[in-house]
């Protein structure tokens, strides 16, 4: 590879001509945790890198803390992504920085139990904690992930801390990817201080300093392949306001293509390209940490609008043996997010909305894919629309009902006046005796609020090319110079908030790509 390059830059769609073409060493699709980390490593190694991002480029002065702006601007499908039956709302980033721009900063390493499961069931024993250790450490250092800080705990999280503490459920302070955080509470809408360490402000910035270019507002439609090699990516240049194509960008990749569009877009891109899909498992086993919220009403204001959105977690129920496990955290209670989470319409809904300042919201994230549940499936319709189907398996419904009961116990222990499930006919819980009623309520699609902020799987790592898409270093089994470095490579859900897992795996994979770059050049 060559010596140091002049710094690159972020090129917005508006700056591109109707037809543009570039030639680089590596084309990277997506600029979130995976794309950012990979770009930084490859650019530092001297490769010419282009990162292509579907979303727009926004900086701290754009982040106005208004949901009406943030969700359409910063999220996939303008905040409307969901499973095809709309039963699970999907919160997923779409901007320069991807999910890291809008995540709630929670920073966990991949749990050792999850790595062991992947080794045992998916044949990737060479991806162990010791191999990942230097990458976790480097990622945590770059993201300023410090020790959990009790000063981060707002009233919403304090109820989780107190309730779990009283019940002996071992609550923990969450490590956060922030520096100089003012605890405003708007991490999900972009940090107006840049106090949150995101891909854009860390690894992507490093990549640009080392010569990488980032193309925003460019939606990659196809990966072009030829004789088992990826040759180029073809993108639509989008008019940002209309979100409609106004041109075309082709990035020719001399050495390789790296996919990091996230666990829904990456399998969809391969399927749309009809490239690297021989295994028949691309887009299958998509995992969501299906997330079950419950609300508690307190006599005193909680004001879940403000303060660090997540600072406490409870992993006491992560291992339930033969049954699906889950972990507990909180969700911020902003007006729009809070209003659409609580069921109903008209006067009944309005009366709930009036009580939002007194609401504490606890969430259970179901650890899907670790048992017999096969997750969901991504495919692409004839017209190019991405479709996600996700059945609510009996094992997940059992876990959801168990979690609702335990969250209600926790909230009562923390002093809630009453707890309310988010069934279409909510169950109001004022004492332990009411909890049994949860099991009697139907838990069906669109019968209880569900969402996902963590998308994983669909292009799983594995040793068997018939049952997996990439190897334990992200390299595609059929396309020798195509790598996948996002959450789609995880063979199951992670069992913890995944951002650090994605960054660290991407950093490991990209280090391996850089090491073997001469071998793959021809």
């Amino acid at each position, binding site marked *: 590879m060559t010596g140091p390059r002049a710094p690159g830059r972020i090129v917005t769609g508006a700056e591109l001509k109707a037809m543009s073409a570039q030639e680089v060493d590596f084309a990277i699709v997506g600029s979130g945790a995976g794309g950012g980390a990979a770009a930084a490593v490859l650019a530092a190694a001297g490769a010419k890198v282009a990162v292509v991002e579907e979303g727009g480029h926004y900086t701290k002065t754009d982040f106005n803390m208004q949901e009406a702006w943030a969700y359409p601007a910063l999220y996939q499908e303008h905040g409307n992504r969901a499973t095809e039956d709309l039963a699970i709302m999907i919160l997923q980033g779409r901007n320069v920085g991807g999910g890291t721009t809008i995540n709630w900063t929670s920073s966990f390493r991949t749990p050792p139990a999850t790595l062991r499961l992947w080794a045992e069931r998916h044949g990737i024993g060479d991806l162990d904690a010791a191999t990942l250790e230097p990458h976790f450490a480097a990622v945590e250092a770059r993201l300023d992930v410090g020790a959990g800080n009790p000063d981060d705990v707002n009233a919403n999280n304090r109820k989780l801390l107190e309730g779990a503490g009283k019940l002996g459920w071992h609550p923990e302070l969450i490590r956060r990817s922030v520096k100089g955080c003012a605890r405003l509470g708007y991490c999900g809408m972009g940090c107006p201080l840049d106090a949150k360490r995101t891909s854009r402000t860390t690894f992507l910035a490093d990549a640009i300093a080392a010569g990488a270019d980032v193309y925003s507002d460019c939606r990659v439609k196809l990966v072009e392949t030829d004789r088992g090699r990826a040759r180029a990516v073809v993108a639509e240049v989008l008019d940002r306001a209309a979100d*409609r194509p106004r041109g075309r960008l082709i990035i020719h990749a001399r050495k390789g293509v790296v996919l990091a569009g996230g666990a829904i877009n990456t399998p969809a891109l391969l399927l749309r390209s009809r490239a690297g899909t021989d295994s028949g498992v691309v887009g299958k086993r998509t995992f969501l940490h299906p997330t079950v919220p419950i609300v508690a009403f307190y006599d005193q204001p909680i004001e879940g609008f403000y303060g660090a959105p997540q600072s406490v977690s409870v992993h006491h129920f992560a291992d339930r043996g033969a049954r699906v496990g889950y972990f507990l955290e909180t969700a911020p209670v902003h*007006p729009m997010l809070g209003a659409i989470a609580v069921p109903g319409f008209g006067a009944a809904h309005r009366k709930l909305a009036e009580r939002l300042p007194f609401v504490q919201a606890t969430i259970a994230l179901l650890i899907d894919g670790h048992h017999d549940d096969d997750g969901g499936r991504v495919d692409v319709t004839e017209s190019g629309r991405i479709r996600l189907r996700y059945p609510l398996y009996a094992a997940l419904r059992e876990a959801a009902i168990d979690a609702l009961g335990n969250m209600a116990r926790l909230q009562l222990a923390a002093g809630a006046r009453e707890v309310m499930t988010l069934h279409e006919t909510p169950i109001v819980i004022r004492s332990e005796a009411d909890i049994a009623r949860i099991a009697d309520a139907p838990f069906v699609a669109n019968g209880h609020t569900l969402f996902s902020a963590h998308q994983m799987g669909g292009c799983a790592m594995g040793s068997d090319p018939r049952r997996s898409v990439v190897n334990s270093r992200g390299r595609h089994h059929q396309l020798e110079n195509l790598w996948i470095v996002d959450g789609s490579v995880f063979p199951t859900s992670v069992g913890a908030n995944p951002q650090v897992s994605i960054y660290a795996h991407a950093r490991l994979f990209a280090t391996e790509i850089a090491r073997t770059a001469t071998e793959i050049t021809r």
Partner: protein
Amino acid sequence: MNADRRRFLKRGLLGGGVLLLAGTLPFAFRTTALGRRPRRDLRLLSLEEHAVLAAVAARIVPGDGAEASWPSAEAVDCAGKIDALLATVHPDVGGDFRRLLRMFESSFLGTFIAGSPRPFTRAAPAEQDARIEAWRRSRFTVLRSGYQALRRLTQAAYYSSPEVFARIGYAGPPVVPQVPA
């Protein structure tokens, strides 16, 4: 069966479910009450579709009994905001949403689903609420999905509007502290 209808039957509402009921209802908008003119130029919906959406939104937010102290759905232009939003998502989603409004307005489907034999825009408020409730509680997934689409879009447009913040005890975003460079 035309291509649009065939695709809708196969793929379902907003990409979802299997539509078990009748198809494109070509006459559904003939008797639509247009109500007030849109507050902005429409980007996706027709005047009739906008009128149905505005009528549904008026029942979803803020609800009966609140007219004096809460902004109306029309005052915060829920229907216009939803039109602008859906003009930017995948064209299939916009198309499905327009078909959903047609189904909601249809007196034929109203009779079938909720015993409500009038176009939605011409039904009395209580009858409109019963119709929404029937979709919400339906045993058909596609109708429950349709209800959720209308409910969530409307409530999202309404509760993300600063005019509504004070009504729910939200003081709005804090002042961003000045941080030395």
